[in-house]
């Protein structure tokens, strides 16, 4: 196969899946290799029973939650970008807002060949920046600490999600307000129930709420679509 052939239409999709699978398998191995090497070096393997106890508690929540995340986020990002985004994490607060605006600003349609390219470029560039910033943050931990955790800046970092999603929401909801009504109203109702009635911390439930609101939003869109209201 010529080098350019692999970037041609149908070949590229197969190629990206192949690459994605290889890279993700390597990442998985590395994730397991790190604690293995550390435990070997210091001879600190925990008893299997205790590990298993902890593992089950975490896995019980994350095995289903990750299915929901997978089903929700892959259509938004396209496959190439998804492979990388699932390695680097921070999907809702970084990768998806970043990629969705990039696709919009590039003037291409999401989920087309061009849209996938922009989405991949955006997620890759965002991932590189985040990794580099964490490195800088780690190296400069001592001098940065008083600045980043200062009382003056605290409200800014406490409210970074409302700042981000206020802006994103305004942009998209103005464009397609009909699609926004049901999920936004449902989200407000959920917030009343969780914050005011159940008195629970809503931040910890956001991972569960994303697929739930996703389903509600898709169902309402389908109903409107069938009735020809969209």
């Amino acid at each position, binding site marked *: 196969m010529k080098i350019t052939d692999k970037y041609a239409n149908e070949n590229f*999709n197969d190629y990206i899946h192949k690459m994605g699978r290889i890279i993700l398998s390597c990442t998985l191995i590395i994730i397991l290799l790190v604690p293995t090497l550390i435990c070997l070096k210091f001879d*600190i393997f925990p008893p299997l029973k205790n590990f298993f106890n902890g593992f089950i508690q975490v896995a019980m929540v994350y095995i289903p939650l990750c299915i929901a995340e997978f089903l929700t986020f892959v259509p938004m990002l396209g496959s190439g970008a998804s492979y990388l985004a699932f390695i680097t994490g921070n999907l809702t607060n970084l990768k998806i807002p970043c990629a969705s605006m990039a696709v919009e600003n590039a003037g291409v349609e999401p989920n087309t060949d061009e849209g996938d390219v922009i989405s991949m470029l955006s997620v890759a560039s965002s991932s590189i920046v985040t990794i580099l910033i964490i490195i800088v943050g780690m190296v400069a931990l001592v001098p940065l600490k008083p600045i980043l955790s200062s009382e003056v800046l605290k409200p*800014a970092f406490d409210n970074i999600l409302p700042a981000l999603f206020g802006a994103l929401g305004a942009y998209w909801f103005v464009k397609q307000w009909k699609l926004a009504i049901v999920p936004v109203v449902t989200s*407000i109702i959920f917030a009343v129930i969780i914050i005011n009635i159940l008195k629970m911390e809503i931040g910890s439930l956001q991972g569960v709420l994303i697929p739930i609101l996703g389903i509600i939003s898709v169902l309402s869109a389908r109903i409107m679509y069938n009735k020809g209201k969209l």
Partner: protein
Amino acid sequence: MNYFDTANSNFIFIVCGLAILFVLSQAVVFLVLAWKRGIVLGMSKNTMKSTIKSSAIFSIVPSLPIVLSLMAMVPILGIPFPWLRLSIVGSAPYELISADIGAKSMGVAGLGGEGYTAQVFANSMWVMSIGIIWGLVYCIFFMKKYQKKLRNVKKKDSSWAAILVSALYFGMLSVYIGPPVIEGGLPLITLICGALIMIIITSIIKKTKAEWLSNFSLALSMIGAMAFSVIANFII
């Protein structure tokens, strides 16, 4: 020996550093792949360049809370392992909760408390590492099939496929709209402020045809709203 001597040892620094280097190199690989694909598709280099630039600039500020999380984890788990965990899959709340579960399942009251030995630290490490690998596992086994399914939906009814993706996206956005509306106070002020700045920037772009500005509209609105929350905090 204190578990911190282990947790902050050069060995763990090197192992975690190499793992992060691998992930960083993968991001570069994807960047190059996408770039070459874009060229073959006949996309403009300028468009692709401005995507890379605007995504990089936007990502700076939302990455700062991750550094804050690192600062919160370091006194408990040492520097290198939290550094690795925050650079790959997962998020700060997940890491702390799963580390704590790892400690408790060793019969220790909690993170860094009495009896938190190097071995307990190792158990925390294992639980944190394996607890959240499922996204990767699903991608390896099901991404190709899922992508095919999505493409079939698109083939059958392309306008519905576009609405479906938007609806999923709107579901996710909405999750973050409800809480500040109900909490009121600074979160609500910041939310409204972010929305207003975005609307203003968008209308400026429309009027002046300053298309370049659209690459920065999200970063500017977000930072503007954050700055306003600092000011509002002084006033209220």
